[in-house]
């Protein structure tokens, strides 16, 4: 027994194997298997070409964007413990997040991070364009990236309303007026009068595209709640799915594009 105890190797134990599926890697194949067998690592390539880790070439903008997204997720979840999306509480809760909450900088990190993410997304797109990394076989991943750009802007836009100050309310009023100008489905859009049954107009301030976004005819409490749910749940979930596809396609399309 004493001899067995002395030879006990935790890296060959049942617990290790049940968690990591493979033994501690001792050669190249083992290291590859470790990446392939890990749900968090498998989206990433097992091996990357040397040029793709050159910061001068990629600026690491895609990676930085993902990092900022993670920061925003963590700080955003923390803010949700204090922020209440109601007309009575929203504005003062934001003030309190800066004035009375421990580490009052948390809300500012979230706000700065949001600005930073738009900048890094833009620079990432710029780099991809300038290095021709949108060309076949990567053209589909460019399209996925455009969807992620739109999601980034939608997250920015919905987060903009949550402080519930004058800037927020009027910015969303102006923004959601674009929905009111939707052809056929917007109250002020071209052809809205055509969508009717007899004399009853179906596209009204209380049934059009802008109403669908806000949950009411103008920006008030229901719009605040709706934007809060879009901002904290719906858009991040959709973004995560598209990010998974985006990263996986980087690997499948042959890794980061090489210098010409």
């Amino acid at each position: 027994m004493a001899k067995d105890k002395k030879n006990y190797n935790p890296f060959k134990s049942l617990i290790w194997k049940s968690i990591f599926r493979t033994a501690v890697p001792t050669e190249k194949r083992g290291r590859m298997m470790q990446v392939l067998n890990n749900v968090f690592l498998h989206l990433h390539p097992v091996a990357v070409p040397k040029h793709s880790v050159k910061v001068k070439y990629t600026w690491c903008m895609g990676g930085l964007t993902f990092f900022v997204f993670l920061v925003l997720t963590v700080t955003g979840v923390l803010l949700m413990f204090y922020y209440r999306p109601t007309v009575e509480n929203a504005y003062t809760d934001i003030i309190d997040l800066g004035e009375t909450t421990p580490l009052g900088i948390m809300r500012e990190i979230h706000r700065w991070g949001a600005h930073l993410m738009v900048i890094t997304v833009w620079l990432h797109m710029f780099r991809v364009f300038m290095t021709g990394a949108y060309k076949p076989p990567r053209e589909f991943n460019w399209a996925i990236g455009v969807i992620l750009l739109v999601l980034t802007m939608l997250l920015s836009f919905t987060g903009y309303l949550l402080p519930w100050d004058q800037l927020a309310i009027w910015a969303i009023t102006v923004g959601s007026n674009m929905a009111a100008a939707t052809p056929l489905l917007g109250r002020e859009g071209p052809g809205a009068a055509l969508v009717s049954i007899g004399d009853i107009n179906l596209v009204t301030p209380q049934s059009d595209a802008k109403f669908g976004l806000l949950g009411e005819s103008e920006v008030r409490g229901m719009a605040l709640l709706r934007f809060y749910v879009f901002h904290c749940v719906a858009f991040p979930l959709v973004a995560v799915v598209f990010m998974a596809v985006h990263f996986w396609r980087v690997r499948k399309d042959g890794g980061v594009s090489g210098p010409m």
Partner: protein
Amino acid sequence: MSDNAPDKQISDATQVSRRGFISWMSIGWLTFAATMGGFATMVGRFLFPNVLFEPSQSFKAGVPEEYQPNSVSTAFKAKQRVWIVRTDDRIFALLAKCTHLGCTPNWLANENKFKCPCHGSGFRITGINYEGPAPRPLERVQISLADDGRIQLDKAVTFRHEKGDWEHPDSYLMV
């Protein structure tokens, strides 16, 4: 082919024919698509509530005699976002929504104009734009006299000057 002979041993009952497979797959996928379509419809409908906890688009605004000639009433601005304007011979209701980007202008009685705080658009008492970026006059809403003699307004119907709507009989009341 003789290598495959043992497969033939499977009885007809467990064999799936090509035709049968395709028709069952079609039924399966169509059912799935219909379910997903129905669910998407439910999600869309769910976002439009049956009961609205906001002021009705149509409301009553007192009797015409309450309004002084050549004055602007701001009594319904906060709740309904309309001004009720009485000129010499007419009463009409202006929607308090700037035609530039949709902010709410203020009535400045001293300067006899509506002024938008967002980008400085100015409108005369009639609603005609004359300064700032607003591209067209304020909109008027439907106005009529209800059976009880009170003014009835309906914001769902608007009248635009640039379309010649302001001559429409539903866009003003004669007094």
